[in-house]
Structures are given as structure tokens and as C-alpha cells.
């Protein structure tokens, strides 16, 4: 019964979820607005696709372009599978938010069904009719294309297309649950569904290009793996969001800007329940007490850091500098560059400081739209580049340690902790919607994590970056010159 809390589902969970699924599927099969398009897409569209493939093959053969016609056949297989699957999104929106709108959800929530059982039952119900239609469509197309042009699909491609279709459906349904939880009407949910339709359309276009390219075996597996990871994240979010509190906690779509601002400000300023603000000293003490919360994102980032070091080394082996460029990596060149830097040393700390701020702001913004992934990527890139350059220097006959100490170490002692802190707080903020604390609403946890990020950023990161910029501007070049002269 603890399935909603992410423990393994029991037999009773499956029994009750199956009851929900059966009812929903029966309901879908009684709705002609769902059934007629599914039948058309299952039977008529694959026949049309077969005829199209046959004609295209004949047409391209006239001009010696048989290859184009041949590449069209697996592509059409992909499309034939995807089109009925796209209905999973419609059914999911209907089954999740439609039920909320028709007020039939509350009686269901008053039964002993757990959130997890209800979620599982509804997700499966949204997948069964389109998945069946999709498999039938693929079968009709396969038989048609075999009989008309004699093309037989390979086993690996068939498995890939079936898996891809199923996972795309899962992604759409799992995303539809997330969308539904934030909407109180089907109309609002349909508008929000653009956030699902647009990426899926782009993905389909990318898949089309891959299918026409011809060498799709590995890439399709990678896409399936990527979609599975996305599904896991969305399911995790969905299970958290699909709970009685989120579903019935608010009946009207509105944004309480005042409340949001107050909540975030109170957390940032660490304002007490009595409305009093702490002293700067106490504020910092509370900030340091908060830092252990960042243990997990910091561990993730350190692992990423290790990976970027390995990536930098690997890149050096795969893409070594050409000899002409290696010849440039001399002590003389480094010293000469350092002397040039000394000419602009007055402006250097300001330039470095604002550059670092820009990078962190970019990472924070991009991370918001990618569950933190882009933020992590931006965090790892400079380290990979640094290791790549150091390794190139070593390849050119230099001493890598001396290079690192002379160019990075003095300011990195401040900059690395600053970047780690900022990236960890940002990662926690970006990823908290995947698994927010159970006692908080998703909006609440997101705002509080944003305020925590601001606390860390303003209280620790900015001072550390300022100090690092001063060291990088005034001390690192001197260390470099001292080491190399």
C-alpha cells in the first residue's frame, strides 16, 4: 500500500489499479470520439502508408533513386506506430484532468485507493488503447508492405520501433499527469500540453532525419534510453503530484504573487515566525547550518567533475593538437601572455568577476528548463577544457602540474568552492520538482529552493567569486611568472 511512497507495488496494488484501468479503458472504448480516430489510424492510415511506399519506390526507381524509396519504408513504420500513440496524450489529459473537471475524482479519492494505485491504473488505462492500436497499425503496415513490395522488417528494427512507440507514449502520459496536476480544466490542460507536443514533434522530426540517414541502429537505442530516463523523471514527478492534496488542494487556477514573494523573501531573509529579522551574524550561522542539505547535489557534481577530468583526458587522446599548435605551447609563450595580461591588470578582476557571474546566471536559467541537466553540463565544461589543455601541454613536453599551479591553482582554491556551492544549490533548486519534500506543495518547495539558492549565491558565492577574481587578477599572473621565469 506504500506504493505511493515509492516502495515496490504489491499484488493488492495491482488488483486495485487493474480495476481502475478496466473501468477507464471500457469508458474510452465507449467514446466514439476516441474510437473512430483510433480505428482510422489503425486500419486506414497503415494502408495509405503502404500505398505511398509502393508508389514512392516505383517513382524513385525511375530516376535511379531506389535508396530514397527504401529509406522511406522504415520511416513510415515509425510514423504508423507513432500516430495512434499520440492519442495517449489526449486520453491521459481526459482521464486525469477531465475527471477533476467532471467532479468525479473526489468520490474516487474518498475510497481506500492509494495515490499510487490510482496513478498506475490511470497511466495504464491511457496507454492500453493507443498501444493496441499502434501495434495493430504496425502489423497492418508490415503485412501490406510485405505483400506489395516484398520488404521485410528486420527483428532489431521491429523491436526498436515497438519500444520507441511504447516509450514515447509513456513519456506523453507521464508528462500529461504533470500537466494535469497544474490545471483544473481540460481546456487549460490542452494549452499546457504544448509543452509536451512541441518537444515530441521535434523528436519525431529528428527521428525522421535519422531514419533517412540510414545508420539508425545505435542512435535509436540511445533515443529509447534517453526517453526511458525522461519517463522515470516524469513518473517520479507524477507520483508526487498525483496525490489528494495537490489534486483537491486548490480548485481555482490562480497565481498568488504576494504569497509567493512573501514565502521566498521570508526564507531568504530567514525571517522568524514572529516577523523579526535575524542579525547578519545569525543569518550567516543559519546559512552554514543549511549547507549540509547540499551534500547530495555536491556529491553528484564531484562525480561530474571526475567525469569531466576523464572526458578532458579522453578528448586529448582522440583530438590531439596538430604539431604546429603544439609548438606554440611553450614557456616563453605563457610568460609572454602573462606579461600582456599585466598590462590590463586593473580591469582584470572586474572582467573575471562579471564573466563568472554571467556563466552562473546562464547555468541557472538553462538548468531551470532541463531539470538541472544543462546547469551541470555548463559546470563541467570549463574543467574538461582545462584538463584538455593541460594534457595537450603535457603532450607538447611541458610539466602539467607546474602548468596547473601557475595558471589555475591560486584562484581555483576560492573559485572551485564558489562554483561548487552555486552549482549544488542550483541543481537542488532545479531538480526539486522531481522529488519535492512530501509535506510541501511543488510550488512551495520550488520557491523555497529558489530562495535557498539566492541565500547561498548572495551570502557565499558572490564574496568568494570577488575574492577569486582579485586573486586571479593580481596573484595568479605573478605566481605564473615566478614559476616560469
Amino acid at each position, binding site marked *: 500500500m506504500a506504493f505511493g511512497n515509492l516502495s515496490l507495488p504489491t499484488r493488492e496494488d495491482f488488483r486495485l489499479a487493474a480495476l481502475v484501468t478496466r473501468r477507464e479503458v471500457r*469508458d474510452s472504448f465507449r467514446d466514439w470520439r476516441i474510437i473512430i480516430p483510433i480505428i482510422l489510424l489503425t486500419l486506414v492510415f497503415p494502408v495509405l502508408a503502404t500505398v505511398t511506399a509502393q508508389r514512392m519506390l516505383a517513382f524513385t526507381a525511375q530516376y535511379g533513386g531506389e535508396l530514397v524509396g527504401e529509406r522511406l519504408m522504415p520511416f513510415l513504420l515509425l510514423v504508423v506506430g507513432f500516430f495512434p500513440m499520440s492519442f495517449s496524450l489526449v486520453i491521459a489529459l481526459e482521464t486525469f484532468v477531465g475527471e477533476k473537471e467532471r467532479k468525479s475524482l473526489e468520490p474516487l479519492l*474518498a475510497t481506500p485507493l492509494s495515490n499510487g494505485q490510482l496513478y498506475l491504473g490511470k497511466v495504464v488505462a491511457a496507454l492500453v488503447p493507443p498501444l493496441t492500436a499502434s501495434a495493430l497499425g504496425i502489423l497492418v503496415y508490415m503485412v501490406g508492405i510485405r505483400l506489395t513490395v516484398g520488404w521485410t522488417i528486420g527483428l532489431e528494427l521491429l523491436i526498436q520501433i515497438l519500444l520507441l512507440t511504447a516509450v514515447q507514449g509513456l513519456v506523453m502520459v507521464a508528462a500529461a499527469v504533470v500537466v494535469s496536476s497544474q490545471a483544473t480544466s481540460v481546456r487549460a490542460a490542452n494549452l499546457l500540453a504544448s509543452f509536451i507536443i512541441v518537444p515530441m514533434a521535434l523528436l519525431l522530426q529528428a527521428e525522421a532525419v535519422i531514419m533517412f540517414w540510414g545508420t539508425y541502429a545505435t542512435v535509436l537505442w540511445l533515443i529509447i534510453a534517453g526517453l526511458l530516463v525522461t519517463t522515470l523523471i516524469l513518473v517520479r514527478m507524477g507520483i508526487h503530484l498525483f496525490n489528494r492534496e495537490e489534486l483537491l488542494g486548490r480548485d481555482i487556477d490562480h497565481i498568488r504573487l504576494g504569497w509567493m514573494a512573501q514565502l521566498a523573501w521570508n526564507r531568504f531573509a530567514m525571517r522568524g515566525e514572529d516577523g523579526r529579522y535575524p542579525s547578519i551574524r545569525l543569518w550567516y550561522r543559519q546559512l552554514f547550518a543549511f549547507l549540509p542539505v547540499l551534500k547530495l547535489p555536491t556529491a553528484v557534481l564531484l562525480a561530474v567533475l571526475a567525469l569531466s577530468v576523464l572526458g578532458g583526458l579522453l578528448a586529448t587522446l582522440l583530438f590531439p593538437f596538430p604539431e604546429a599548435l603544439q609548438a606554440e605551447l611553450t614557456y616563453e609563450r605563457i610568460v609572454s601572455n602573462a606579461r600582456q595580461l599585466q598590462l590590463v591588470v586593473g580591469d582584470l578582476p572586474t572582467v573575471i568577476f562579471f564573466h563568472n557571474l554571467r556563466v552562473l546566471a546562464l547555468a541557472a536559467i538553462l538548468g531551470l528548463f532541463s531539470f538541472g541537466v544543462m546547469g551541470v553540463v555548463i559546470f563541467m565544461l570549463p574543467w574538461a577544457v582545462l584538463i584538455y589543455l593541460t594534457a595537450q601541454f603535457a603532450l607538447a613536453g611541458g610539466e602539467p602540474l607546474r602548468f596547473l599551479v601557475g595558471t589555475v591553482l591560486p584562484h581555483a582554491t576560492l573559485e572551485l568552492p564558489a562554483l561548487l556551492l552555486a552549482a549544488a544549490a542550483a541543481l537542488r533548486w532545479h531538480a526539486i520538482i522531481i522529488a519535492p519534500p512530501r509535506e510541501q506543495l511543488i510550488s512551495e518547495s520550488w520557491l523555497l529552493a529558489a530562495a535557498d539558492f539566492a541565500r547561498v549565491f548572495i551570502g557565499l558565492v558572490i564574496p568568494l567569486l570577488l575574492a577569486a577574481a582579485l586573486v586571479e587578477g593580481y596573484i595568479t599572473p605573478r605566481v605564473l611568472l615566478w614559476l616560469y621565469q
Partner: protein
Amino acid sequence: MIIANRLTKQFDDFTAVADLSLQVNQGELVALLGPNGAGKTTTVRMLSAILRPTRGEAFVNGHHVVKEAHAVRRSIGLLTEQPGLYDRMSGLEYLQFYGRLYGLEPDFIERRSLALYDRFAMPNTADRRLGEYSKGMRQKVSLIRAMLHDPAVLILDEPTSAMDPHSAKLVRDAIDELRADRRAIILCTHNLTEAESLADRIAIIKHGQIVAQGSPLELKQQLLGRPQLELHADRPLNGVVTQLEELVTLELVQEHVARFRTDNPAVTNPILVRKLTESGVGVISLREISQSLEEVYLQVIAG
């Protein structure tokens, strides 16, 4: 059966229910009255283990609404404000679905459903699609859904709201029987006559707080004072006003009619009638003027 202790529910910065305490015993029916948005639905949702209280705690049938939410939901039959039926299912299919969620056997569900259909004067309609049902029938199916698993506690939100008088009477009789069968019942309603006739106690909610609570009679006495009595005489009362004032608190005297209040009508009224008769004034009638619950409600809500 139901114990709520300082229940509070906050949505962001809005407090829907504040420090609400309530007790409903076995075999007791408590009516929750209050204007729209007073916090009745939120209270019901917390007691039904649908929403978690922000503060305070509640027990239903001995189970904690947060820690034993599953057991609470098993013990409760909830009739929601909106019937929320599935229009493409038949009545029987719908009840089979809900019954099986409570672990009931299909045969038992069918027998009990058909019996309740008959009880609520809907024979031979269980196989029809719910989309074809009238508003009143939909409401009755929702009530059957709430009663199907024979729960110890019933929470009924506007049970007769869409019904014709005959159907409403059938439902009220059923509620009365459930109470006699030792169920604890909470009734949310805007129908004050229904509340007065069914409820053992009434709790009036305003801005998320219970502002008045008691039996209908207690509430009337608390808020409207002692009952008012009206006397009709066969002669003008001008000559006996002083005698009347010695016995009761006069509020109105017209030629043949007087209205008054008294602390102890059982003692005062016979004396009053005797004195009037001795003074040559015949009493045609003496009756209590009924004070409606509506007056109580309006007075409480007006604050």
C-alpha cells in the same frame, strides 16, 4: 466516532478552517451549516482523509485521519457535493466498480445495489446508463455509492439537494434509519428545515470556525431567548395588563391579543389562565410562537 481537535487547514496564505473542534458520537447526526466558502467542504475533506490538516488532529472510527488514512477511508461513506458519476456506465456497473474498490464480492454488490435502488424508488433502472438519469436519480445513486459498503460513519453533503419532495422524504427516512442503526452522521446542508428535523446537534461554521453549536432547541434558546407565547382572549385585555405584568414579561398587547415570555411556562401559564378567568376574561387560545432555525442561522451569520 468522529473527534476533531483544533483542525486547521491553510492553502498558501488562506486559512480555510481554523481551530475547528467537533465530536459526533455513535447514533448521532450533526448538521454542519454555514454560508458558501465557510469551510464545510474542507472540513469534510479533512475528516474523510482526502486533505491533510495543517494543524490539529482528527479521529474517525478510532483511526487517525493522517496516520491511518486508509482505514479512515474504509470506515467512511462520503456523499460529495456533486454526484460525479461516469455517464457511460450503467448504474449497476458503476456500483460494481466502487464496491470492488472496497473489496466487496460482485454478487453481494449486485444484491445490495438492487435493494437500495428499490428502497429509493428506482426499480428496474440499474441497467440504464447514468447519463440518462435525472438529477435526483444521480443524487440517489451517489448516496447508494456512499452506503454500499455499510460504513460506520457517513458524511453527506447536500443529500436531498436535487430531489423532488417524495424522493427527499425517502432519503431523510433512510438517514434516520442509519442513525437508529448507530451510525455517526455528518450532514452538510443549506436546507435548514431538513437540518432541524434530522439533526441531534447543529454546528454553524463561519470563516472556518464553529461559531455556534448545540441542539436546535439549545441554539434557539441561546440566540433567540426564551420562547414567545401568544394569548387570544374573548374580551379586551386593557383591564388586566397589570395582572399580566406581575406574572410574565409582556412584549405586545393589542385589544384581544397579548405576546409575552416567561421563564417557566409550565407553572406560569395555568396561573395566568386562572387569573384571567377570575377577572372575567375568557382564554380562547394560548400557544408558543415557533422560532425558526433560519432566524438563529441569520443571526449567527450576521455576527
